[in-house]
């Protein structure tokens, strides 16, 4: 576990620092120049001062945009971000967190840095009095740095401390808080604390808060271990898994999604870089630049990696260096799903689409995409396609699943490729017949329900165990889990509920009867019913009523919410159970006048069950009514 975390941590830090290993390896002479984002920014600002520009500097640092016009970002997107940020700075906005998500190298943080410089300076100039003017030299952005521990602070509290300190950067000191480097969110505890801190920020009673910007580079992580085949932060570093549903659904969070940089913009920027770096080009390369740029932009939406590739190509002497790879782009779940179901326009044939997909991304190596296909194949053309296509698709998925390797707990990659090809083939043949009339429109794709079901199973097992333990402690019967699943989960609570109803009626009846012999005979006849107690017996269908598990558009809701519910119910069940066994044993023991010798010293405090409060007053009349009928019933029986 530790080694895994270490690995993942490593992979994250390499991701968050966005250093392309390839470029490092290609340019060993610049070792240690850019180890982390922090340092990169420093060097960036230095180069702005003009003090330390080196000839061998990485181009993507050297030519990083100095002003908003140079930014490789769609104008509309920039305007969106500007509007939100402006509103947050001026305090007019209800948003407290701006969340920027997208793949690496799409100008997320750069846009924040540049915008904040402009907006914060404006704001300060407006608000500052002459007295405070000197402070305007303060940086307009404060970044969180997970490695910067001050002595004596605990690792877990580090982020919380940072937010606590940042809280007061308002008024004339106003600064934008940028979170780009995350605490170790792969550790569940740290992740939980991280989310808690953000929630505290969102719910903070302080009226004015500095704008908090989270820039999250989403990616899929190739997990070496196969422990979690489902969506989790270990395999999918996306905002759903990192931030959690509660944060995401809060109205104070504004999310703006960045797309990979489009071809036109990328082309423009690469050309600009070429012009600026003309003298650095290896002889003979300058003429071929157009071809190379064209090639690069086909496969890359990552400007940083594109510039690096350009630099390497331009400076290296090798003539055949046309096949330089840009940073491999990982395909997100929905992206991959879309390619498989609806095909891709980028490549000429479906064969290439799938080859690319299989080669490029860890996504295809897990079961998620397969589950996704099952969940989403019906979105194709809004379910309007013949049944035989569905049959073939599900059949291919089913066959692929039989190739699951139990010993390594992994699917063969061939077995995974099979359904992808089958799906693509089916749907491409379908499109040919349909496109003539009108282009097919599709429903929205969703996450698979697997996680939701898994949580429900957990809940069921918990409740079933609860039932089994009550059964054993109170009634002295043991049942196997299978029997509980198939029979008792339904019948047990049903019968007990009936008995409980009867008992309540009987209690009312008994209170109205004063004759002790009559009471005695009633009790004698209804012992079963009187043993039932709604505080201790399971009275609801174990695992909830049967119904359907609906599609979830929201991944996190399946993961996080149920998680908290589960832990709570576990606790409650456990407590209830202790109480159950003790009180029931005490009752029985009292009645027998022979307390169990190994009875634990019980806790005399008996918690009142909230649910019974509702019962007591509203239903009294019904029970009185029933009580009045009871004698007749009894007569019939005897």
């Amino acid at each position: 576990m530790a080694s895994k975390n270490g690995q993942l941590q490593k992979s994250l830090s390499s991701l968050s620092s966005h250093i392309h290993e390839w470029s490092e390896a290609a340019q060993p002479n610049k070792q240690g120049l850019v180890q982390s984002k922090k340092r990169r920014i420093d060097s960036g600002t230095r180069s702005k001062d003009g003090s330390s520009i080196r000839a061998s500097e990485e181009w993507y640092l050297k030519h990083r945009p100095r002003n908003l016009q140079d930014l490789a970002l769609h104008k509309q997107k920039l305007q969106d971000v500007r509007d939100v940020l402006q509103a947050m700075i001026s305090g007019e906005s209800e948003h407290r967190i701006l969340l920027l998500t997208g793949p690496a190298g799409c100008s997320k943080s750069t846009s924040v840095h540049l915008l904040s410089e402009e907006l914060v300076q404006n704001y300060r100039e407006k608000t500052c009095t002459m007295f405070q003017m000197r402070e305007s030299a303060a940086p307009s952005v404060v970044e969180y740095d997970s490695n910067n521990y001050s002595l004596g602070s605990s690792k877990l509290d580090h982020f919380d401390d940072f937010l606590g300190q940042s809280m007061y950067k308002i008024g004339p000191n106003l600064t934008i808080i940028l979170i780009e480097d995350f605490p170790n969110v792969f550790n569940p505890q740290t992740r939980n604390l991280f989310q808690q801190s953000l929630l505290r920020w969102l719910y903070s009673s302080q009226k004015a808060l500095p704008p908090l910007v989270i820039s999250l580079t989403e990616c899929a992580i190739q997990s070496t271990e196969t422990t979690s085949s489902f969506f989790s932060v270990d395999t999918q570093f996306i905002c759903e898994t990192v931030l959690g549903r509660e944060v995401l659904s809060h109205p104070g969070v504004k999310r703006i999604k960045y797309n990979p940089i489009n071809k036109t913009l990328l082309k423009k920027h690469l050309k600009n870089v070429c012009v600026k770096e003309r003298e650095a080009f290896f002889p003979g390369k300058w003429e071929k630049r157009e071809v190379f740029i064209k090639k690069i932009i086909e496969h890359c939406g990552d400007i940083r990696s594109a510039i690096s590739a350009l630099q390497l190509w331009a400076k290296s002497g090798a003539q055949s260096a046309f096949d330089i790879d840009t940073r491999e782009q990982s395909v997100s779940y929905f992206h991959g799903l879309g390619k498989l179901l609806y095909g891709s326009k980028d490549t000429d044939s479906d064969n290439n689409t799938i080859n690319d997909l299989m080669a490029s991304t860890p996504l295809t190596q897990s079961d998620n995409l397969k589950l996704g296909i099952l969940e989403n194949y019906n979105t194709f053309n809004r379910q309007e396609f013949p049944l035989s296509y569905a049959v073939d698709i599900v059949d291919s998925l089913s066959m692929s699943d039989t190739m699951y390797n139990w010993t390594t707990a992994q699917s063969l990659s061939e077995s995974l490729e099979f359904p992808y090809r089958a799906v693509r083939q089916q749907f491409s043949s379908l499109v040919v017949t349909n496109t003539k009339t009108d282009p097919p429109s599709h429903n929205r794709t969703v996450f698979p329900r697997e996680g939701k079901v898994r949580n429900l199973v957990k809940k069921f097992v918990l409740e079933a165990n609860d039932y089994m333990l009550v059964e054993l402690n109170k009634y002295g019967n043991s049942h196997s889990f299978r029997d509980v699943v198939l029979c008792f989960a339904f019948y047990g609570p049903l019968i007990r509920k009936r008995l409980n109803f009867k008992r309540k009626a009987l209690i009312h009846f008994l209170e109205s009867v004063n004759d002790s012999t009559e009471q005695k005979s009633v009790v004698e006849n209804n012992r079963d019913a009187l043993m039932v107690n709604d505080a201790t017996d399971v009275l609801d269908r174990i695992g909830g009523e049967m119904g359907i598990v609906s599609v979830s558009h929201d991944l996190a809701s399946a993961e996080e919410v149920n998680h908290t519910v589960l832990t709570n119910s576990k606790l409650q069940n456990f407590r209830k159970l202790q109480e159950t066994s003790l009180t029931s044993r005490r009752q029985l023991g009292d009645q027998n006048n022979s307390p169990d010798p190994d009875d634990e010293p019980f806790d005399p405090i008996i918690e009142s069950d909230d649910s019974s409060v509702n019962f007591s007053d509203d239903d009294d009349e019904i029970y009185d009514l029933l009580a009045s009928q009871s004698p007749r019933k009894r007569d019939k029986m005897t």
Partner: protein
Amino acid sequence: MTSIFYKDEVLLREFNTNWKAQLTGKMSLWVDKYRPKSLDALTHTPRLTHLLKSLSVEPRDLPHLLFYGPNGAGKKTRCMALLQSIFGSGVYKLKIDVRQFTTPSNRKLELNVVSSPYHLEITPSDMGNNDRIVIQELLKEVAQMEQVDFQTASGAETGGLAHRYKCVIINEADSLTRDAQAALRRTMEKYSRNIRFIMLCESMSSMIAPIKSRCLLVRTPAPTTQETADALVKVGGQEKVTVEDEAILNTIAESCDGNLRKALLTFESMALNNEMCLKSSTALIRADWVVVILKMANRILKDRSVSSLVECRATLYDLLAHCIPAKVIIQELAFALLDAIHNDNHKIAVVQWASVFDERLRLGNKPIYHLEGFIARVMCEVDG
């Protein structure tokens, strides 16, 4: 403290003073309440009862036993009754312990072990893939501990016997992995002086031959419809259920396919739902998941389209969420379909595809693909 709770307290106090003697014994569902506790009380299959009685005459020579037969036929009841005849009613004093095991990958595993002074029960499905570890650890512990008692308690006839060997009941023995069965085989030989195994399973097909050869195989057949109905009559009489027409009991018995547990539970819930009075027209109460599968079967035959398939998937997911084994789902669904289909060719197709996907369920990892695959195939076949 709520008022209802208060009433409970008052009532309890009155119980304590007035009817103390009356409320002894543990009440529960009828299926448990009327479970035969001794060999003499066993109802159906007298031949088997005779065999068990003869086993209990010479308890020292008790062999390892392997009970096999369908669910609800009374395997466990017979096994416990046998133990009762050997050890006395102490075997029904159950307690539950939580034991901890460590897997080779250093994962902690907690397991509830139900035991009495004379036996203990384990259920392999609780332990998942680590059953070999659990079997080895637990049995070694039991086997080695008993040897000490064996020395001291050799004197008294029954006392000595009680300590001579301890019974280990393995529920659902057919879900033991091959590994665990191999480990068990070794244990059976090595500690046969201290441990007797009683294994319960539905089908012997997944038991390895060495285990089968070391056990006395006891087939436990399901009660016939008549025997089931008789059992219901007996319970109904004691619980003062008015049965206006015996036909309803036959209906219950038939719907339960020889599963006495299911029959009794159905009977009790029907009785309670109808003021302890059953008529021939009383509605049968089936388990909700069975009803869901029946409805699904009808839907498959009526509405054969992609959208219907998608809706079936939502239902399948809920069945799986309620831990209904995929094998049971496909089985029930296939039988429900067979009942509803009239075309013979379609029937053959249903059986054929059910067997194909049943095998894939065993080979595969995620049941949902195969269940949906089966439904899709059936829809396609019926479409023609």
